């Protein structure tokens, strides 16, 4: 099992991975507070992008509503903490099943009735929007006025209750991202991974080859939803406030999937590179516009949109497939 993870991995890839890993683990030692928050954001998107990629990149099911799973995870854990004082790690035991159930619900509806492609994507948006409006009116989580976690000045980091300074969240997310990466690699090398790729490429052919497509698509949704909900829990305890309008909003779902698409759908490095590129680009634009003295609301997003447009026009498969050819890595997860 473990040896298979390293099958067909070139030495160059390993060295690069090692350097990246050491760099990321050492980063908080040198990074300023501001840079650290940017890195946290990058890891957050890299992690969720990886989770989303399981559904889209591996199994070929386009979800445009992943904010649903983030929101369910965040709200479940936060509400348990606020109402019953249950910590986030125990909260995960509830939050993950809740999100997994939501994913299974969507998957069941869609795959039972052969709802695929664009219809599936719209269904995922619809359920997320349904949840957004629903949570707006749910008094247990304080509705649209927002759910707040108690905060204080933290002198030490309490990992068990996730109360502490940004650097703790950085390491939690870093470990999660690394684990997600390894997990996805293992999935791709397993039977399930091959079944998924078969379904992605040609579902009818996969079914005629004897693959239970319903079952494996369900597995993809449930795994992806569960992984995503963990990021939601972290989100809740990092930001300490939750508003349905923000957490479940369609623009959150879009944010989540831009990274892996720009980085390269279906690749393991795509979500990571995409997160670095997009978050980096966004922060650079803010800095550049501030330096130029441009103070127009919307100016940043216009440039952001133009950059997205150029990337997708120039590199339809994403950045990573192109980059990996450029730096001569043999590893090509396709």
């Amino acid at each position, binding site marked *: 099992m473990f040896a298979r993870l390293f099958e067909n991995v070139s030495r160059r890839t390993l060295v690069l991975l090692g350097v990246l890993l050491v760099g990321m683990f050492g980063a908080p030692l040198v990074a300023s507070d501001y840079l650290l928050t940017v890195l946290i954001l990058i890891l957050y998107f890299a992690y969720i992008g990886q989770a989303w990629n399981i559904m889209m990149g591996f199994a070929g099911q*386009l979800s445009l509503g992943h904010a649903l799973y983030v929101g369910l995870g965040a709200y479940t854990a936060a509400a348990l903490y606020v109402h019953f004082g249950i910590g986030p790690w125990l909260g995960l035991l509830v939050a993950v099943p809740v999100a997994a159930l939501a994913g299974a619900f969507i998957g069941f509806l869609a795959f039972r009735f052969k709802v695929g492609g664009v219809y599936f994507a719209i269904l995922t948006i619809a*359920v997320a929007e349904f949840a957004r409006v629903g949570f707006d009116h749910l008094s247990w989580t304080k509705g*649209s006025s927002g759910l707040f976690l108690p905060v204080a000045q933290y002198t030490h980091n309490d990992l068990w209750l996730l109360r502490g300074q940004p650097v703790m969240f950085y390491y939690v997310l870093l470990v999660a991202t690394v684990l997600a990466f390894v997990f996805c690699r293992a999935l791709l090398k397993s039977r399930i991974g091959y079944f998924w790729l078969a379904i992605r490429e040609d579902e009818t052919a996969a079914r005629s080859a004897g693959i239970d497509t319903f079952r494996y698509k369900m597995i993809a949704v449930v795994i992806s939803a569960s992984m995503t909900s963990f990021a939601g829990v972290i989100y809740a305890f990092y930001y300490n406030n939750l508003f349905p309008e923000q957490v479940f909003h369609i623009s959150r779902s879009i944010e989540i999937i*831009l990274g892996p698409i720009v980085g390269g759908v279906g690749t393991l490095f795509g979500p990571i590179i995409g997160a670095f590129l997009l978050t980096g680009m966004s922060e650079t634009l803010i800095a550049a516009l501030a330096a130029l003295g441009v103070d127009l609301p919307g100016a940043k997003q*216009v440039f952001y*949109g133009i950059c997205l447009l150029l990337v997708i*026009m120039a590199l339809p498969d994403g950045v990573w497939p192109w980059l990996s050819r450029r730096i001569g890595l043999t590893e090509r997860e396709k």
Partner: protein
Amino acid sequence: MTFDVYLNVAVGGLLTGLVYGLMALGLSVIFGVVRVVNFAHGEMMTIAMYIAITLFQALHLDPLVMLVPVAAVLFCLGYALQAGIINPFITRPEHSQFLLLVAIAIIIINVLLILFGPDAQSVQTSYSYDSFQVGKLIVDATKLYAAGAALAVAVALYAFFRFTAIGTAIRACADNYTGALVVGLDVKHLYALTFGLGAACVGAAGVMLVLIVDVTPSLGPAYTLLAFVIVITGGLGSMPGALIGGVLIGVTEAMAGLIFTPSAKSMFAFGILVLVLLFRPQGIMGKKAA
């Protein structure tokens, strides 16, 4: 509350729904032919809305007079967009097209934000507060005009597809892409025409909606979603389906706003969508999927 109140609200929802239907019709036409999901649909509508508002403020033109010119502008915009940017993407995977249109949507929203600011704007016409009374039924004049215009545009579009040579050619492209290429149709041009027509529909709908709603740059995504809900409810590729879906959603939202709370009304629209996907995935008027 008496029956009259319900009836009045339902009729208001029906009229608004027809305008929604026209907006959705544009999306349906584009998807039905070009097979690209226009994720910038609502955003394109806000462009039309701001053109209408600007012209109204500068020249005091009645929005109903501006209907055709604004639709023409949107047609050109749609044509250029398809011919210049989207055509190379028609053979690419869905997520790639999605990203492209999301990028376009982001640009549109924020350019409008820079140009017009975040504040809501509206149009007050001489007939803004007029109404017609039929028995106990009171109908807003603006909604009635808007719905009438929406129906007229929809009928014109239907006639175009049904009875003109270009309309027939576009339907041929939708039915069989390769076949259309083989018989020598200029598919890319026809696609651009179709996208233009879809944009013109949503443009016309936008001009009429300025009579009914306040306009902000961030209005786009909500209407994009609404158009999706309507099109899928009514049946993708079915022109009457889009209008029927629009009316259904319009009435449902109005009634939900009355019976429950206005802020929860979109929940019912999405609820209907889920039900339709469950029990009739091809939509109310859609043909049975193969």
